[in-house]
């Protein structure tokens, strides 16, 4: 199998964004995933979000673990550095990368096996550290790449293609992220671009640990009726708490929403989130009630989607560590090496 490069010819009339880039400048190479795989729709949403935000692609670093989902960074943002690390350990690599250069945008892409099974520990710890990142789990409830075994988000009682029945309780990464202190928590569905793109855009602008669980059906191993990760199930049981309109401050237009159903959230960088409320009793600023709501709907068999929680001024790991403003990877001898005099003092103190 060889890498398929897309021709780089631009149609002169392709629309450009504020930076003069076209949609094509945010694409990667041609996907090698199964036709119809939910993961490809997420890649498309990421491309769309970055294009609309007019992000310089090279200022984004995309990191992933191992799995079909973790392969996707090859299929978007071809001008960005990418890192396909090891299974379940993307969070630590991303944390290290972020420590080295606080000025880039970090996009972590993972699967449910990658994050909820082998990598549950790293998932938890990078969230509680408040790493400034967008952490997307492309959640299909199975191990796609190794051909259909259960992941830790698989439904209890569901059966695999080869007949095994899952008797373990599923892990809800959204509930965990809320509990672990993520300052931006959302869930969406790969098939709902209208909901997903604004969620990704807002997550990118958010400073701190932003987590998005995206239900992403695996057409090869987990799209049968009854699976809560199938297209049909999510369409029928989607309980959207709100719909997000994301706008960068400079073009903030006051939209004409019915009073009482729109809520504006100012992000750290001054950009605005507008939440169109679908569930009127839902408040995305309350961690505890978010958890309760999530679990109530889940008990009713519903998949809650939308922005579940956001805390705009939560801060991030660099803030907690009190590191200097310039990226650590730009410091040289002058800033880093204490020099011979201090060494002489050290020597003297050890005589």
């Amino acid at each position, binding site marked *: 199998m060889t890498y398929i490069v897309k021709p780089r010819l631009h149609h002169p009339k392709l629309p450009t964004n504020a930076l003069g880039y076209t949609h094509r400048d945010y694409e990667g190479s041609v996907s090698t995933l199964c036709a119809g795989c939910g993961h490809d729709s997420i890649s498309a949403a990421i491309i769309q979000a970055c294009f609309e935000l007019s992000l310089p692609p090279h200022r984004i670093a995309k990191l992933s673990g191992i799995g079909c989902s973790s392969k996707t960074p090859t299929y978007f943002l071809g001008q960005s550095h990418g890192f396909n690390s090891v299974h379940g350990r993307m969070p630590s690599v991303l944390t290290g990368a972020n420590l080295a250069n606080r000025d880039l945008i970090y996009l972590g892409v993972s699967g449910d096996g990658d994050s909820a099974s082998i990598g549950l520990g790293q998932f938890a710890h990078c969230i509680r*550290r408040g790493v400034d990142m967008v952490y997307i789990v492309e959640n299909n409830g199975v191990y796609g790449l190794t051909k259909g075994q259960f992941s830790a988000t698989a439904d209890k009682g569901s059966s695999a293609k080869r007949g095994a029945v899952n008797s373990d309780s599923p892990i809800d990464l959204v509930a965990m992220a809320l509990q672990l202190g993520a300052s931006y928590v959302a869930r969406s569905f790969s098939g709902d671009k209208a909901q997903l793109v604004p969620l990704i855009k807002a997550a990118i602008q958010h400073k701190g640990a932003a987590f998005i669980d995206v239900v992403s059906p695996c057409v090869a191993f987990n799209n049968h009726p009854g699976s809560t990760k199938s297209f049909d199930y999510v369409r029928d049981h989607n309980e959207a708490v709100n719909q997000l309109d994301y706008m960068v401050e400079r073009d903030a237009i006051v939209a004409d929403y019915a009073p009482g159903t729109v809520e504006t959230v100012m992000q750290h960088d001054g950009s605005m989130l507008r939440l169109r409320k679908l569930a009127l009793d839902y408040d995305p600023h309350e961690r505890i009630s978010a958890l309760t709501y999530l679990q109530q709907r889940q008990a009713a068999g519903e998949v809650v989607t939308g922005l579940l929680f956001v805390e705009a001024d939560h801060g991030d790991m660099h803030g907690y560590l009190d590191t200097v403003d310039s990226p650590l*990877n730009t410091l040289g001898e002058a800033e880093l090496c204490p020099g011979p005099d201090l060494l002489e003092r050290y020597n003297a103190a050890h005589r």
Partner: protein
Amino acid sequence: MPQPIKSVNDFVVKFANVNGSGSASANALFAKSVLRMGIPASSRNIFPSNIQGLPTWFEVRINDHDHLGRRGGVDMMVAMNPQTWEQDIAEIEPGGYLLYDATKPMPASRFRDDINVIGAPLTEICNRTYSDPRQRQLFKNIIYLGVLSALLDMDVPAIETLIGEQFRGKDSLIKPNLHALQLGRDWAIQALDCPLGLRLEPRDKVGDRIFVSGNDAAALGAVYGGATVCAWYPITPSSSLAEAFQAHCQRMRREPDSKKRRYAIIQAEDELASIGMVIGAAWNGARAFTATSGPGISLMQEFIGLAYFAEIPAVIFDIQRGSPSTGMPTRTQQADIISAAYASHGDTKHVLLFPQDPNESFTFAADALDLADRLQTPVFVMMDLDIGMNDWLVPPLKWDPARQYDRGKIMNFEDLDSGKEFGRYLDVDGDGIPYRTLPGTHPTRGAYFTRGTTKDRYARYTEEGPAYVDNMQRLLEKFETAKRIVPRPIRRDAIEQTRYGAIYFGSTAPAMEEALDLLEARGIHLDTLRVRAFPFHDDILDFITSHERIFLVEQNRDGQMRTLVTTELEVDPARLVPILHYDGTPITARFIVKAIADMLAVVTLAPLRKALP
């Protein structure tokens, strides 16, 4: 009764204590006082994996001739722990001395009649002077130091100065400590004929040397070498390295005005995460390291392989111990050689550095950061508990103010913008080392996707066999380059022509040097080579082939360095005679002498007998 041992400035004092009884600072005070008298000394903690209540020992080697490794045997035992009484008494050399707390009478059967017994009523003095039980316990240690000061004729003002330095800022504690010291001295001077056969005479032989632990020095080397990211998970005996890095950075690495930190330290959730963070940071252009020990290295295996194949710098300090977690975590060994050299899955091999003491730990720490960047690969600094956690007397640390960090081959914005060709895994210079770019450098050039081995020279995805082989061959080429730039081995030739050689490395150095002198005095001459790095420099093969037999001295059971040498240099294993010490205590000069002399007696019976005195 053999003659009481008489010696000036050449003996071993061992303190047997109970962990957590406050003896550590009194014992350290003793060692430092010897140094302040200008007499070379070293000290070793032998301690259990426990916080309070179990036996612990502190051994001080005093030697005018700078033999500061462990010698073996004890001339003066300060036996403060009834639990280990039998074993402590047994360790004393015939004619040696025992100092113990004679407050409670002991039956004669519990002593040996070939040693000199000094019973000091330590508890009685304490009970008489102090009412608080905590004080009774703490000052007992200072009182036995006072007794020793008289017995060994120590320089009292030197001890007093040290006590002053130790309690600087807590001045109210100085006086009671000085008083306790005096109580011990007074008793000894009154009750005994001081000094004894063992005596300290002031010298001027310490010079400008410093007394430091390897972990502290290595951490400082990481600061000087420009490390900005440290990710670690606590494990004895490596934790004090990361903690020392924190302490050094706090003092030396703050932005002058804002006081913000020019470093980031993360205590990770485990060793997998520590090494992952190091790799992420180094991929993104920061100098990063982790410190761990054998069990941590085991956990890091997968990531180490990724770093090798993806060619990412990473510095790993392995402070070796007697492995597993319920093994001998607080004892020393050199037993991770193979697991580090070939760490991970697939065809991997890694650069290892073997510092011999804290001074070299400092230098190698900074060198490792340069080497990792230059070679774009993991570099292990193979220390051990003996170097890492004990204070050694070593030359002062030096830093060349003109030294520049070698950041290796990184293409910057100008390189890319000027249209220089970039292929992440292209061997442009013929040394096997490709160029890399850092994320965020250029809007349209130099981005690439990092992954294991499914890639071609331009980092494009491919699973083709020839591309894989091409890449693996280049990695070998790179290892050849490593061979030329890692620290070279150091050879020392015997005063007489000899057919025998010895190879050693790491913390074995001081014991080995003493052993060579002792062997020489017995007419046994050995050329030696101290290995300082893997991959092995050609000098090592030359050394082996130019000697009939080589003794390979190491501190593990399986002769791991011997395995590595035989495999990598393709030499006949029969040429390499293993000399193995692995009981968890640091190797001793006497052990080496006996092992080599015994071996020589076996392998070369007739000619050697003539040679022996």
